[in-house]
């Protein structure tokens, strides 16, 4: 694949920066009226998540990063690694805690999540935007409270802790927004 020149720069572009894959999140064209043009760019390092600001001269180039997002089913955790499967090819991938990171608390077996592959190996895991999980522990709520004001902590089957309304009980299924970690609703079995 050909290198990207400053004129190709746009949000979402995946490039190599200082040896790591990175995604462009901001690209500002800067040009003094009578002077040299620059691109002032913000990139997120896809390994570390760190945001880097960098300036490029016009026609400078960046190498594309071999990064692809793929839907995969989460199979199981063997105590050390997490196992995923590409549903069409049945090809399996393993990822360690550095790759799975915070996503681990939303991973439920059989759920389909997005695995970002870098040079063919998992780089990061993005859980579905919302997941349905069972409450394994929460204080008994006050009878008659249906408002949801206040709330209480609940531990879910994956170990995640979220705030739920008082009327929600242990063993119930709830839907949670994985991006904010917030309770959305109760789910009937």
């Amino acid at each position, binding site marked *: 694949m050909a290198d990207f020149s400053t*004129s190709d720069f746009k949000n979402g572009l995946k490039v190599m920066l200082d040896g790591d894959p990175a995604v462009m999140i901001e690209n*500002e*064209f*800067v*040009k*003094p*009226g*009578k*002077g*040299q*043009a*620059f691109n*002032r760019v913000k990139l997120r390092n896809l390994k570390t998540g760190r945001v880097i*600001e*960098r*300036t*490029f*001269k*016009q026609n*400078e180039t960046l190498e594309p990063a071999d990064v692809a997002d793929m839907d995969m089913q989460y199979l199981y955790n063997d105590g050390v690694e997490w196992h995923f499967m590409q549903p069409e090819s049945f090809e399996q991938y393993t990822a360690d805690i550095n790759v799975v990171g915070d996503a681990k608390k939303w991973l439920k077996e059989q759920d389909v999540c997005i695995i970002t592959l870098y040079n063919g190996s998992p780089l990061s895991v993005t859980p579905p935007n919302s997941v349905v999980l069972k409450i394994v522990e929460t204080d008994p709520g006050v009878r008659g409270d249906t408002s949801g004001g206040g709330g209480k902590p609940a531990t879910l089957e994956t170990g995640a802790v979220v705030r739920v309304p008082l009327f929600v009980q242990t063993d119930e299924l709830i839907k949670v927004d994985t991006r904010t970690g917030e309770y959305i609703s109760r789910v009937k079995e």
Partner: protein
Amino acid sequence: MSKSSPEASWRPSCDQTALRARALTLKRIRRFFDERGVLEVETPLLGQSAGTDPHLYPFVSQYRRPGQTVGVDYYLQTSPEFAMKRLLASGSGSIYQICKAFRNEESGRHHNPEFTLLEWYRIGFGLDQLMDEIEALFVVLFDGKRDLGSSKRVPYRKLFEQWVGVDPIHADWSEFAECARRCDLSEATAICGEDRMIWLDLLFSHIVQPQLELGRVYFVYDYPACLPSLARKKPGGEAVVERVEIFLDGLELGNGFHELADPVEQDMRFDGDLVVRRQLGLPLPPKDQRLLGALAKGLPDCSGMAIGLDRLLMLMTGCSHIEQVLAFPVSRS
């Protein structure tokens, strides 16, 4: 903003408020200059010569006389400066123009390749009087739109030293590189090399401009002589030229000069530009002999200013993208 669904792309990218703000601004500008006895003029958008400025890329078209099959290159103007100076030399007196200018390869939050310029020239004015006039114009234009604090006039060198920490005129590359490192701009060394012009552009736009106080108009004047463009050298041997730039909210709004009138010096600057163009492998446009002819006849002592009207409208109406003040930006043209 540039991405829109096809069925919606016929619509303007600005709202009705922006359309009305533009109409009102044009009316106010014309009244302002009319009351001051400055004559409105028009000059060609399509011309036989382009400027030599190495950082401006003109749009090129072909002109054919009726029946002619092989055309001749004509350029959409990047600024009306040369034509207006020919009018000044011909005895027009002080003049202004509101026109389109075109600059290829310029597109972004603050750039549209086709944009509107307000350009004017005042006979007998120095930079101080020009700045006074811009202040008065902004009072009229911002009335009812936005309250601006009192403006500030600062020499380029002072502002640069204040925020970058070195003298823009005498510091060498290693000092610039050290400043860049301190400001987390290590890549600047590879970009700028030993080119003082690029160093100054990069450090000023990345470090100084973001520091300028919001809501206050800055007049930055006495530019280093390596950034002369078409300004006069300041008498007294200092290595600066009589150039002023306007900034508001950190954004460059306009550029003005105590105009260079010496045809020999002008010819040398054309040659200087062409040397740079040759080094960069850029096209070598012919020098505008008509401008040189006008200067030889005699350009009256004058100062001139060009202001980007679209950016001015952005700042008046609180828009963050130039497309919000244009009916149809290049992506919808």
